[in-house]
């Protein structure tokens, strides 16, 4: 009781029938160390206020303490489910500062590794979403496939989770000789798995009923709250940095941008921007990523995997640079300021999950507690990326 009163006083609200429930930081389905202060009347929520900051590790401040290349392993920890993107974004920003051109082979290796990582990250997202809805089996299925991706990436760069693969001026290692057939074999296998995934969970009647028309984010609201990536595209806009502001090897590839089309079907109450759209856009993105990796393997250019003129001691001219990439959780932007020294004057990362957290309070009004779990999962937030 005492704790209730404490929380109530803290948030300045007391109401007769309102129950205040702290969902987290140790809750099975908050996707990391996040707390949601749920104001509930029975099963229906009045609102859920997210509290972030439990996993803050001051990574951006560390960027000012260590050298430019020394910060690269730290970027892995920004988003441990999609570490390649955090690597790439930082590398791009520093390369801009240095005025380096990355050789095509390195750019292709970056695209391949990033797209594989995107699939891995989406698999976790889709699997844990299914688990939050109560279906346990899709999660091991997703993990099994992710395990294969981890094996592939391990063969490519020696690490399974925190890759540190992208370096300033290129990538850490060249592709092993026998890697291409391994990768192609897995891509063929994964096509069938995606079909199976649709049969197993995507169009399961209960699953669609749970998600259709739930927590709809209209396009205007998504833009106002600054949503990025799949969450934004699910609201019905075809905006992807890989097409809108192409970087790296992406102009060479031909791929579609999946966006929200009320995939749940109007007869089930599906609306553009509902939870099911956010789920299914990710499934479709996996298919596109597979096609990008295939194209990259087909067109894989010879040459160096590292720019020839990367200085041993990286000391960019005083100035600032910004990079934007399309990460698994949406646009990831790095802003690096140099004062001409060995260490950055300021490093700032802008991540998708933090932006997604902002919209939860607004969306949660009138939802049920079971829906809050689905909403969090559909926004694909991951705690270290929120707090950095």
């Amino acid at each position, binding site marked *: 009781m005492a704790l209730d009163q404490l929380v109530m006083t803290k948030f300045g609200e007391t109401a007769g029938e309102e129950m205040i429930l702290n969902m987290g930081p140790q809750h099975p389905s908050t996707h990391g160390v996040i707390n949601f202060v749920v104001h509930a009347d029975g099963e229906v929520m009045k609102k859920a206020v997210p509290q972030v900051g439990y996993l803050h590790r001051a990574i951006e401040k560390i960027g000012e303490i260590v050298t430019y290349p020394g910060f690269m392993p730290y970027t892995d920890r920004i988003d441990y489910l999609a570490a390649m993107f955090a690597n790439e974004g930082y590398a791009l920003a520093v390369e801009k500062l240095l005025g380096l051109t990355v050789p095509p082979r390195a750019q292709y290796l970056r695209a391949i590794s990033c797209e594989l990582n995107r699939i891995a990250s989406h698999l976790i997202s889709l699997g844990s979403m299914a688990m939050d809805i*109560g279906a346990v089996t899709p999660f*091991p299925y997703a993990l099994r496939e992710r395990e294969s991706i981890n094996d592939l990436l391990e063969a490519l760069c020696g690490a399974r989770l925190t890759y540190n693969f992208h370096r300033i001026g290129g990538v850490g290692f060249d592709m092993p000789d026998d890697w291409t057939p391994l990768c192609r074999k897995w891509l063929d296998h994964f096509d069938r798995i995606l079909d199976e995934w649709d049969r197993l969970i995507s169009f399961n009647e209960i699953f669609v009923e749970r998600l259709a028309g739930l927590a709809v984010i209209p396009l205007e609201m998504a833009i106002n709250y600054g949503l990025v990536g799949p969450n934004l595209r699910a609201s019905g806009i075809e905006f992807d940095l890989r097409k809108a502001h192409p970087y790296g090897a992406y102009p060479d590839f031909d791929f579609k941008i999946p966006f929200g089309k009320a995939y749940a079907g109007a007869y089930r109450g599906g609306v553009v921007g509902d939870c099911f759209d956010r789920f299914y856009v990710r499934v479709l993105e996996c298919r596109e990523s597979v096609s990008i990796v295939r194209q990259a393997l087909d067109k894989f250019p010879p040459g160096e995997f590292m720019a020839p003129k990367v200085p041993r001691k990286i000391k960019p001219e005083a100035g600032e640079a910004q990079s934007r990439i399309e990460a698994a959780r949406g646009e990831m932007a790095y802003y690096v300021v140099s004062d001409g020294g060995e260490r950055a004057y300021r490093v700032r990362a802008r991540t998708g999950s933090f932006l997604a957290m902002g919209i939860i309070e607004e969306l949660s009004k009138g939802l049920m*507690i079971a829906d809050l779990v689905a909403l969090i999962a559909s926004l694909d937030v991951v705690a270290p990326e929120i707090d950095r």
Partner: protein
Amino acid sequence: MKELIDKIIVEQLGHDPQTWPMAQGLYLVGMMLVGVLLTTFGAIFAGLLSWWERRIAARIQSRIGPNRVGPQGVLQFIADALKLILKEDLIPTDSDHILFRIAPYFVMTGFILTFVVLPFGYHLSATSMNVGLFYVVSITALVVVGILISGWASNSKWALFGGIRAAAQVVSYEIPAGMVILVPIIMAGSLNMHDIIRAQGGAPWDWFMFQTPWAYASFFIMFTALLAEGNRTPFDLPEAESEIVAGYNTEYSGMRFGYYFLAEWGNLWVMSAVLTTLFLGGWQVPFVSMAKLTAWEAAGHVPLWYYLASAAVFTLKVLVLVNIIVWIRWTFPRIRVDQMMNLCWKYLVPIGMGLVVLAAVTELLSYQLFGEAAKGQAKVGSIRDTLHFAFFLVAGLVPFAAFALKTRRNIYIVGDRVDLSNW
């Protein structure tokens, strides 16, 4: 059971049970013996099922599952129970201590007491009560009392959510279950579990499920309602771990926690046995007609193999149903609270009510048309028998074949194959 003891007293001991004073004592011993047997059966079945379900789940999820303790890990449940018994029996300070301690026993009692009337085979049940089905329906309501108490007494918001959800769910789904139970009761004209089985037959088209479309639909409503009453996926809202941590048993630990799971897994047997009795012909052995059985009974000698075969048939049917329930749990997501209520009150209850009326009308009409022949098993070659057989082909074999083909397609389309080598 009483008849058996009476028989022993008369034949072996040479006394009249009505006047012999020791008879009461023998009754007591018999009751306790049966009680211990049934409780042990329930506990061991629940334990073995816990292992079996984990193995099945593991196979569904491309894992291996518990395979270390004993051959194929079959003794895993003993290790688990031992661990649970040795653990500290933690009771939260702010909880209602008495209610918190007592709640698991309500759940266990509600579960164990159903075995009093459940049949296991021909003439194999603790009692053959005239109100057997009514007894099962009412005694299982004790379980929800225990769950509600545990939710309240834990003094935890998650547990309270679980308890309230369980109460709403179980009480709601008892209504469609209670309604569709009437369909086989009307068809059999009895509440006695054994009499209901005797009104059916060994062949599938003699089962109540395939006799009329109403009974066929009733089976699925009953199945759904029992899933909800047993808190099984897709109705596992009271213990939805992704929403309310662990539901009503969040604060429990040690063997008290174990009791809840014992009751939950044991309940699968109860559920499946009730369904088997009502719709799937119970212990009726195929190729042995009721006429033959009645002849044996009239002669005063039923062969021993019939007892064994009936028990085997009954167990087999129950285990198939248990397996289906396990598959459902590891395939489907969970529905939401409002959807759960909608399904019950907007669909199952009205449909169930309609089915009862239709079943009653059908029975009345068939009695008008066929007279006494409308009761019991249809004679081979009669119009009723042909109708039942045709309905069995349409409603039984066609969906089964479609399911089998689709399963085969699903397995082969991803390049998998049926492979038990890593079991």
